[in-house]
């Protein structure tokens, strides 16, 4: 009980109580409410928005734990399974990605797991790349049409699949990479950091290397993000981890902080164009904040190997979506239906669950 009166549980409980009471009140009001002709009944509106809140909460827990940003899960799910317009989905998707990143920044930075300098440094490349990517999307759309988009989507899917295989084969090496050489530029940036790792009960000191290459790669990630109008946490984590030799958990935490900053820039054109509809986006925001607090607490305490397993699952699902979309756009296969996506998702979830319970020994973390 005492724990509930301390931060972050106090604010989390208060927020959940406010949401629950609001919906109980709304359910009572909706019983006697009249539905205007051509409108949706209050009861249905309440059910729909409460469903959005619960889904958003679940997305945030997973997204924050793995540092991918909620948009990567939200956007494909909404586009695949709801009739909602894609611009509304993309605008709200940025809100989802941004708030899962922003709310987790506090706990991550306070615990030392997140590295603010690293996030700010990478956000310059991310912002620049996203701008170039958005311009590129217009160019490709004008010049190459759907064929160009299909090729890019397919190639991206293959890259994501390769990354997931690398994480699978690389095993525990990618959990705690060692920076063998630190260049002059890396030293000038002064990015080394240390934090207390709860799962190991020890202080971890790490160095960041290849900062210039990292920034260049993040520009590329930003280009992809801007090109497709989707979050890029799934790519930022591998870049920080594999290129800059940042420990996987630090990469996941810093990626969340970076997404929070980066999407604070990229969401505004959507808001100013009216693509973010306040009453629709707001409930998703609340779910992200509540779920983000839980997700950040989990990431601080769980083992790095578990983060890698979940990340592999998400990368596999993303690559499946990208490859099938690419092949569909190029006309090689017919459109993949929703149930197929669900079946693949369930198979991947089952695989991840088996790995987390130790059934796939190769994925167990060392150290």
């Amino acid at each position, binding site marked *: 009980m005492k724990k509930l009166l301390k931060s972050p549980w106090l604010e989390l409980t208060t927020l959940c109580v406010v949401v629950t009471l609001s919906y109980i009140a709304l359910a009572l009001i909706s019983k006697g409410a009249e539905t*205007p002709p051509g409108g949706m009944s*209050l009861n249905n*509106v309440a059910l729909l928005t409460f469903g959005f809140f619960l889904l958003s909460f679940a997305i945030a827990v997973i997204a924050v734990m793995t540092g991918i940003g909620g948009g990567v899960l939200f956007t494909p799910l909404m586009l695949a399974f709801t009739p909602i317009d894609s611009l509304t989905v993309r605008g709200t998707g940025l809100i989802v990605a941004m708030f899962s990143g922003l709310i987790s920044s*506090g706990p991550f930075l306070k615990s030392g797991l997140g590295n603010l300098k690293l996030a*700010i440094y990478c956000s310059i490349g991310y912002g620049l790349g996203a701008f170039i990517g958005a311009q590129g999307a217009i160019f490709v759309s004008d010049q190459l049409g759907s064929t160009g988009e299909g090729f890019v989507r397919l190639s991206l899917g293959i890259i994501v699949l390769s990354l997931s295989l690398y994480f699978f084969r690389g095993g525990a090496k990618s959990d705690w990479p060692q920076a063998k050489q630190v260049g002059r530029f890396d030293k000038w940036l002064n990015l080394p950091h240390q934090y207390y790792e709860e799962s190991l009960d020890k202080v971890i000191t790490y160095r960041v290397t290849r900062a210039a290459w990292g920034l260049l790669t993040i520009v590329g990630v930003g280009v992809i993000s801007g090109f497709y109008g989707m979050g890029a946490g799934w790519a930022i984590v591998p870049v920080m981890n594999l290129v800059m030799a940042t420990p996987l958990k630090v990469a996941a935490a810093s990626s969340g902080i970076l997404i929070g900053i980066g999407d*604070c820039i990229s969401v505004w054109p959507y808001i100013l164009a009216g693509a973010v509809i*306040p009453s629709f986006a*707001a409930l998703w925001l609340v779910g992200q*904040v509540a779920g983000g607090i839980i997700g950040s607490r989990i990431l601080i305490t769980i083992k790095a190997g578990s983060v890698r397993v979940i990340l592999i699952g998400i990368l596999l699902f993303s690559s499946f979506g990208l490859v099938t979309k690419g092949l569909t756009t190029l006309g090689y296969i017919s459109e993949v239906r929703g149930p197929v996506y669900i079946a693949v998702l369930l198979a991947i979830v089952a695989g991840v669950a088996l790995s987390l319970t130790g059934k796939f020994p190769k994925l167990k973390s060392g150290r």
Partner: protein
Amino acid sequence: MEEPKIPLPQIVYGKIVYWLCLIAAFICAIGPVMGMAFSDNNLLNPHYLFFAIWEGSKPEVVWQEVGGGFPGGHFWMHNLNTWDGFTQLGLVIGCSSAFLALLGSSIAYLRQKPRAYGWALIALFVAAMVLVAAVGIYRV
């Protein structure tokens, strides 16, 4: 075991963003629900709004058909007495939180010993990018 000291700019950035997001979340939790309960006090009547969204209408069509046209991204300034204006205020607070937090961390970089002028400038630069986007100069 003694835990390492966390740099001041990290603490400042984290606290500002965390509390501003929570304020935004409380506003966004109350705003839409009150808007549904008192549906006449909105720019966009929720009965028609959610019907139009679920129909797959484009945002400009939603604004046009339900609200008589898009009043601009900062419509909350003149519509704080409506529930969706109030909700938009929550969104704006959250979407601007990184700007204020980066300003705060920039000051913290200058106050810590030794002073990190370079990092203070980089944080200010990124904060300026958020500001420029929020006022509508940066458009894609």
